[in-house]
């Protein structure tokens, strides 16, 4: 509000009024902030940014004042109603008369979940949607599962650390050598260079190990006969490992994991717990050649009394297939392929074919 007022007064009001101001006030009005850095569009940008801050603050305050004294359930019901209205407006574009009439009635009576309204539940609430598997049919089986890339971002961190540390070490080494060359030795710097060089070598090794881990291990292909999964169902699985390597062991596991997010002070922390881990395949040793990929087809049954996939803001239950290999001299790898498990008898029929 202050910045917006300052810009308005300095740029539009003062030239029109022509008032004589004391030096202190003139100093404030001629500041970079009030002139927008002296740029042609600067004052407009500053005015717009401050106006946007005022609008967002007013909306936030209004929202909180409107919900003052509301129960947790009422706020949640209103949120659900708004999301339904959003979905309803999408349906209303196709059916203009019926859907809009129903939603207006709902708002008037503050009734959510009317049993008389027909709801076929095309989506399962709190169950994550299956990724677009319809667009990725498999070659051997119906669907090809997408892998979750892990560790690809950490290689950039390792690269940055190795580059910076080694650059500093090279500069310090040059300074130390030049000191010896011109008969002005720097023994303290030379001693410090020993641990510095150790860290430099470690960071370079770490970077190379991560690069080798990404580039050296070939891609993993996992295909499944049906998706989403249903508890008690039997599914066929096809796993293929590409590349050139010798693995001490290769394992395929079906994992169900609980994940919770919680606040501790101002930090948000998370905790994971493996609720179910079922080994589907374990083979050792495994040899992978570029000409002869390692591949295996197997069948597994999802246990009947297991929890379906669940996703909320702070808690989730996630299913995934984990393919892990222990290799030498290449580093071990672990790739996970997310799955969606629906509640029993709720699997919608879909097929990519």
């Amino acid at each position, binding site marked *: 509000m202050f910045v917006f007022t300052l810009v308005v007064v300095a740029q539009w009001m003062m030239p029109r009024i022509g008032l004589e101001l004391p030096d202190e006030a003139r100093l404030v009005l001629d500041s970079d902030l009030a002139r927008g850095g002296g740029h042609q569009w600067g004052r407009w940008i500053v005015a717009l940014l401050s106006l946007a801050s005022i609008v967002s603050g007013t909306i936030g305050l209004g929202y909180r004042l409107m919900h003052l004294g509301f*129960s947790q*359930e*009422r706020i949640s*019901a209103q949120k659900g109603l708004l999301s339904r209205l959003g979905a309803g407006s999408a349906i209303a574009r196709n059916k203009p008369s019926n859907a809009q009439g129903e939603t207006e009635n709902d708002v008037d009576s503050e009734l959510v979940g009317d049993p008389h309204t027909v709801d076929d539940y095309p989506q*399962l609430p*709190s169950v994550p949607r299956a990724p677009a598997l319809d667009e990725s049919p498999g070659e051997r089986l119906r669907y090809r599962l997408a892998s979750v890339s892990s560790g690809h971002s950490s290689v950039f961190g390792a690269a940055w650390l190795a580059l910076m540390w080694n650059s500093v070490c090279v500069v310090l080494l040059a300074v130390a050598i030049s000191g010896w060359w011109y008969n002005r030795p720097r023994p303290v710097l030379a001693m410090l260079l020993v641990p510095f060089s150790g860290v430099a070598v470690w960071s370079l090794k770490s970077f190379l190990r991560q690069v080798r881990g990404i580039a050296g291990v070939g891609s993993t292909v996992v295909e499944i006969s049906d998706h989403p999964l249903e508890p008690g169902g039997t599914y066929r699985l096809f796993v293929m490992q590409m590349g050139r390597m010798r693995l001490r062991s290769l394992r395929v596991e079906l994992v169900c994991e609980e994940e919770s*997010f919680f606040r501790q002070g101002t930090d948000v922390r998370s*905790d994971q717990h493996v609720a179910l881990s079922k080994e589907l395949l374990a083979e050792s040793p495994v040899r992978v050649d570029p000409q002869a990929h390692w591949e295996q087809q197997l069948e597994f049954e999802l246990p009947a009394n297991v929890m379906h996939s669940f996703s909320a*803001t702070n808690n989730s239950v996630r299913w995934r297939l984990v393919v892990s290999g222990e290799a030498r001299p290449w580093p071990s790898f672990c790739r996970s392929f997310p799955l969606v498990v629906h509640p029993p008898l709720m699997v919608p029929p879909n097929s990519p074919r």
Partner: protein
Amino acid sequence: MNVSLCRDDATYAAGGFLKASWRVSRVKLEELSSVEVSVLWYTEGKGDEDLSVHYFRRYDTAQLRHLGIESHQPIECRLPPSPLSYRGHLLKIQWGIRVRVFVEEGREVVAEHPFYLIARKPEPVVFAETLMAELAQVPIPAKQPLHRRLPAVIQRWRGRAGRVS
């Protein structure tokens, strides 16, 4: 406050209908400001709470006067297919009916009745009309009367008695 469910085992199938009732007693109608009834699920455990309301109804003073709080008020809704009740290591998904009574002077009282939402049972197999017609044509063996079966039964008993002796 009293919340009662239509099923004694408090177990409902996903996608099925829930019928329940609520009642507020020992409070004067004039003291009540409003009553909120909701069917909801929430999480318990290590993580922060997630909550979602499936059915919600709010009664203000005028509506409560019209309804009369002494009698049982019905709650009827169709339950969603998910999330099912769950008791895990880090989280627990709990379904329940919550009645929140707002009394004058800003005080509020909450009563909750938990229930379980379980997977829907498989529906009975519905045969196609052609299959039903074929089944109707299959001759069902008629049960023989006892006096015709009696000689065979006696012969079987004698055989058993001979083996025992």
